[in-house]
C-alpha cells in the first residue's frame, strides 16, 4: 500500500473511532438529526477555506490570505445586500448581484496573489502574508471597522435553509468538493499543479506554462473563499471584517493532517475532506462531553504533531527497512525543513 492511501486510511479509522467513542459516551444525542444538522452548518465555512489552502499547498505554496479574501468579499457583498431597499431592484437580482460582486472581488484578490507569486517570483508565504493585511485593511476601511447588518430575509437561505433535508451550505460544500476533485484529477490544470509542486524545473521543461498554472491556482482558491464568505455572512446575517480569522491556522492544520505535502506535489481531496470531518467530529464531540474550547485547541495541536510523527515513522520504515532489504543500502532521509 502506498503512503497516499495509508494516510487517508488512518484518517478514516480515526473518524470512525472518534465517532464511535463519542456516540457511546453521549448516547442518542450525538448522531441525532439535530446535531448532524449543526455539524453540517459549521463545517462548510472552514471546509471551503481548507480546500482553497490545499490548492495552494499542492503547488508548493501556501495561502495565508484566504481569511482576508473571505472578509473583503463578504464585506462587499454585505454592503450591496444591506442597501437592497435603496437600490430598488427585485430581491433575487440584488442577491445575485451581491454574490457576483463577492466572486469578482475574490477573483481580483486571487489575481493579485497569483501575479505576486507567479510573475514577481515572491515566495507564496510572504506574498500572501502581505496581501492578508492588505485585503483585510481594505475591508476595514470600507466598513470603518464596524459591522454591517440588514440583509434581505431571503438571503438567509444559504446559511440556514434546507435542501432535501440537508443544510444548504453542506450541499454547496459537497458540490465544491466535487468540482475541486474534478479539477485536480481530470483536467490539465490539475495535472500541471501536481507537476509544478513536485518539480518546477521539470514542469517548465515539459512545456507547462508555470506562471499561468500558479495564477489559475490562486484564482480557483479565491472563488472558494468567496463561496465561504457568502455562507458565513448568510449564516450569521451580518458581516464584520476579520470574521472567521480564527480559521486560518485551522485550515493549515486540516490540510496538512489530510496528508498534503507542504513542500508541494502531493495531496488528495479525499484526505482533506476526511480531515475536515475528523476536526468537526472532535469539535462537536468534545463539546458534548463538556470539554472547553481550549482543550480542543490542545487536542488539535496534539493531533497534528502525532499524525506528522506517524507519517515520518511510516515513510522511514518503508525507506530504511523494507526498501533497504532489496537495495542493500540505507536510503538517505529527505532534507528536513
Amino acid at each position, binding site marked *: 500500500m502506498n503512503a497516499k492511501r495509508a494516510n487517508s486510511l488512518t484518517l478514516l479509522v480515526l473518524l470512525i473511532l472518534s465517532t464511535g467513542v463519542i456516540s457511546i459516551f453521549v448516547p442518542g444525542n450525538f448522531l441525532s438529526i439535530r446535531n448532524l444538522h449543526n455539524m453540517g452548518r459549521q463545517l462548510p465555512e472552514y471546509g471551503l477555506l481548507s480546500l482553497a489552502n490545499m490548492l495552494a499547498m499542492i503547488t508548493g505554496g501556501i495561502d495565508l490570505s484566504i481569511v482576508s479574501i473571505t472578509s473583503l468579499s463578504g464585506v462587499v457583498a454585505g454592503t450591496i445586500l444591506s442597501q437592497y431597499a435603496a437600490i430598488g431592484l427585485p430581491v433575487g437580482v440584488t442577491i445575485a448581484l451581491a454574490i457576483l460582486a463577492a466572486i469578482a472581488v475574490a477573483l481580483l484578490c486571487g489575481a493579485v496573489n497569483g501575479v505576486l507569486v507567479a510573475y514577481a517570483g515572491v515566495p507564496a508565504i*510572504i506574498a500572501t502574508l502581505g496581501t492578508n493585511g492588505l485585503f*483585510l485593511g481594505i475591508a476595514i476601511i470600507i466598513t470603518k471597522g464596524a459591522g454591517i447588518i440588514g440583509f434581505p430575509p431571503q438571503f438567509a437561505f444559504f446559511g440556514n435553509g434546507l435542501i432535501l433535508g440537508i443544510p444548504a451550505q453542506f450541499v454547496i460544500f459537497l458540490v465544491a468538493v466535487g468540482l475541486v476533485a474534478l479539477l485536480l484529477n481530470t483536467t490539465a490544470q490539475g495535472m500541471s499543479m501536481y507537476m509544478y509542486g513536485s518539480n518546477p524545473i521539470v514542469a517548465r521543461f515539459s512545456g507547462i506554462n508555470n506562471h499561468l498554472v500558479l495564477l489559475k491556482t490562486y484564482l480557483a482558491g479565491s472563488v472558494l473563499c468567496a463561496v465561504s464568505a457568502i455562507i458565513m455572512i448568510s449564516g450569521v446575517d451580518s458581516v464584520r471584517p476579520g470574521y472567521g480569522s480564527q480559521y486560518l491556522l485551522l485550515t493549515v492544520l486540516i490540510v496538512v493532517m489530510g496528508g498534503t505535502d507542504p513542500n508541494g506535489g502531493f495531496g488528495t481531496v479525499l484526505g482533506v475532506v476526511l480531515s475536515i470531518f475528523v476536526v468537526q467530529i472532535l469539535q462537536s464531540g468534545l463539546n458534548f462531553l463538556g470539554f472547553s474550547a481550549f482543550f480542543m485547541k490542545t487536542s488539535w495541536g496534539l493531533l497534528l504533531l502525532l499524525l506528522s510523527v506517524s507519517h515520518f515513522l511510516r515513510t522511514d520504515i518503508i525507506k530504511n527497512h523494507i526498501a533497504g532489504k532489496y537495495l542493500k543500502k540505507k536510503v538517505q532521509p529527505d532534507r528536513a525543513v
Partner: protein
Amino acid sequence: MILLFSLVVTIMNPAFFTLQNFFDLLHNSSGDAILAIGFFVALLSGGIDISFPAVAIIGQYIAVNALISMHVSNLVLALAISCGVGIAFGAVNAFFVSVFRINTLIVTLGTSSLFHGAMLELVGTKAVNAGQLPKCFTDFGYAKVLHLQTASGTPYGLPLFAIVLAVVVLATWLILRHTLLGRIIFAMGGNFEAVRRSGVNIRRVHFFIYCYVGFLAGIMGIMSVSLIRYSNPTYIVDTELLPVIAAVVLGGASIMGGSGTLTGTLLGATLIAMLQQNLVLMGLSSYWQEFFVGLMIVIGVTVTHVQRKFRTGNRLTFVRD
C-alpha cells in the same frame, strides 16, 4: 526606505524627528525587535518558527502568576521563569524538528496550539490587571537609564528596554558572526545536505536555535507585560505574529534561509514600528494601519524579488518557496 519614510513623516509632522519620539519608539518596539531577532535566527537556518507569540504569552503569564502566588516581586525570578518556559518550549520544538524531521512550520503551529490551549486549560484564563501585577513589572516598564527633560518640562529618557535590546543584538551578532555555531546556522540555511555530510551534529544546532528563539520570546513576554501593565493570557497570540514576520522579511532575510543580516532585521523592525506609531501622527485613522502594513510588505518583497529576477536574468535558477 526608512529614510524616505522618516522624511515623509517629518514633513507631515515636525514633532516626529525628536529625541523624545525616538526614545518612545524604542520603548514601544524593543519587544517586537527582540522577537524579530529570534524569528530571524530560525529563518536563517532554513526553518520557520511561528510559535514565538505563544511562547511569549505562556512565559509571561506563568511568571506573573507564579510571582503573585509566591507574594514576591523579583524581576530576575520572573525573567528566569519566563525564559525557562521558553527554553523548554523550544526544546520540544527542536525535538520534533530534529528527531522526526517534520516541517518546522507544522511543528511550531502544532506546539503553539497545543501549549497555549493547555495553559489556558490548566493555569487559567483570568487576566491580571495593573493593580494585582507585582511592582517589579511596572518598575521595569518605567525604568529609564538616562533622564532628560523637554523644554516644557516633561521628563523623558532612554528606556531600560533599549539596553536589553542592545544586549540581545550584541549577543546574537557575536554568535552569528564569530562562533562556529553561527556559521553553521548560516550554512544550514544555504545547503542543509552539505552541512549534514560535513559531519556537523545537526541535532545539537537545532536544539540551540529553537531554545534561543524560546529564550528571546520569554524575555519579550516579560517586557510586554511591563509595558502594557496588564497580563492577558490571550493577548499577544495573533496580533504580534504578522508584524514580526513582516519586519524580518522587509529586512531582506531570505525566507528560504541562508541569507540575511541582523542590521536589515533591525531596520525592518524599526520601519514597522514607525509605521504603526506614526500613521496616527500623520492624521490617518487607525483602521488604515492594517492596510499600510500589508502594503509595505507587498511592495517591499516585490521589489526585492523582481530585482533578484532581473539580476539572475535568463539563468535557470528556479527557486522553490
